[in-house]
């Protein structure tokens, strides 16, 4: 791959207690592209995703070996501040998780962590994030309503806006559309295409068509191993490995 590497994963092993969930995974994630992680349930793709912003740190008994370089710096290095890692690598969860606050306060949450933006600046960044998440037009007149009141699709875009607000470099998405109806899904997919101009995106998906539609690179995981990674059109048309072909053509999974 000729693109500039944003994240370089080198011989990553991950354990939940004694269970090894990732086995010697090495993968290079290019900047300003969409990388899709596919594979059957329990193959380790979500675990892999959560390694990329050290969200697995909070899992009891979790252990990580190997290196993950973000712009060349190992995010598991001894000097690294995990909070800084998560500011640079944002995340959108499978189940949209708006906080029971207003729409405005949801988007502003990350901005307020590091202190005191002037009010006007805060409002401007909330607006920009909501616009970037293609949600502004739908909520502009009710920013101070509870975020629990908007629809599921809107909630997920709100969570994307919230992640965008802190201006990360990478956005991790864990099946962001799995709980959404087709129309909301389409909106999120269009949004992903738009976002890759500014961000590097890694997305876990169960949906083959979605991976084919939105991603540039596809990585296929099976039983904790990275089986194959290539340009998406190659994975879906001429995969090198038999198992990849079986999976993408729906022969198992």
């Amino acid at each position, binding site marked *: 791959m000729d693109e500039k590497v944003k994240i370089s994963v080198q011989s990553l092993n991950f354990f939940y207690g004694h269970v090894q969930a990732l086995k010697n995974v090495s993968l290079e994630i290019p900047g300003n592209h969409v990388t899709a992680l596919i594979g059957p349930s329990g193959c380790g793709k979500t675990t892999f995703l959560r390694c990329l912003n050290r969200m697995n740190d909070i899992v009891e008994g979790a252990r990580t070996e190997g290196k993950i370089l973000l712009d060349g710096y190992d995010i598991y290095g001894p000097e690294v501040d995990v*909070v800084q890692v998560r500011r640079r690598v*944002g995340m959108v969860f499978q189940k949209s998780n708006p*906080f029971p606050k207003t729409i405005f306060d949801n988007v502003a949450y990350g901005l307020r962590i590091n202190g005191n933006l002037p009010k006007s600046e805060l409002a401007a960044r909330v607006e920009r994030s909501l616009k970037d998440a293609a949600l502004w037009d739908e909520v502009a007149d009710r920013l101070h309503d509870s975020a629990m009141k908007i629809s599921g699709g809107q909630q997920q875009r709100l969570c994307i806006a919230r992640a965008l607000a*802190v201006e990360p470099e990478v956005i991790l998405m864990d099946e962001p559309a799995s709980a959404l109806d087709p129309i909301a899904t389409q909106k999120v997919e269009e949004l992903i295409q738009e976002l890759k101009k500014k961000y590097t995106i890694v997305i876990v998906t169960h949906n083959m068509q979605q991976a084919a539609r939105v991603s540039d690179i596809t990585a296929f995981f099976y039983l904790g191993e990275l089986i194959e990674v290539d340009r998406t059109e190659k994975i879906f048309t001429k995969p090198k490995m038999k198992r990849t072909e079986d999976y993408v053509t729906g022969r198992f999974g």
Partner: protein
Amino acid sequence: MRKKRKWSERLGFSILTLSGILVLTILGLILLDIFTKGVSVLSWKFLTEAPRNGMTEGGIFPAILGTFLVSLITVIFAVPLGMFAAIYLHEYALPGKITRLIRLAIRNLSGVPSIVFGLFGVVLFVQMLQFGTSILSAGLTLGLLTLPWTITACEEALKTVPKSYREGALALGATKWYAIRTNVLPYAVPGMLTGVILGLSRAAGETAPILFTGAAFFLPRLPGSLFDQFMALPYHLYILATQHHAIDKVRPIAYGTALVLLGLILFLSFSAIWIRYRFRKKMKG
């Protein structure tokens, strides 16, 4: 075969229903008994005046005030401590020997008879810390008594906050404490309050722990500071019901006192329910 099962099912169902009704009846009888016998003495004067003529006349205001002040100390002492302990246990403590030991201690503490707390209070607060027999000593003793309940209630409240609130905040670059402070505690506090109020309503009715630590048989004056002795509703009731020289004469006053104490506790319980209800409504948006 079919008929038999139906019959046994009906029997089981009847037993369950009867048990429910029995519980309700017992509670109803207690309330009814106290209400009918106590309501006659209830008046504004009864609530606002001091006892007179060897407690055979007058009101119970000093006891109400005493119970209120002691409860205040209990809350000020037990709530922050219980809350912080719960946050530590639920959010920070790593599973291991020490955590298990702390939990074991809490569970055992909740099983300790209240008279033992009273004796402990005498040793620690009255004698060692030299607070004397006082509102402060009694309040702190009751605080110890409610601590296990407070911790447990606060921990339960923390458990009800979805994991996704914590993870969502962490993923945005929040530190753990920031996430807890801004995105967990606000949603746990009403649940914590509910538990705390219920614990307090238990404490307010306790006699044994305050018996040696500050409650007085009778005081001619209201307490002037936290280091003074005080009169309290449950203790006053105990005196009137069993220790008084003219038990028959003061019986109505005893029932009136019981009614006030019961009313106070019901009030606390209902405010707990009210807080929970308000909060549920708010969370739904």
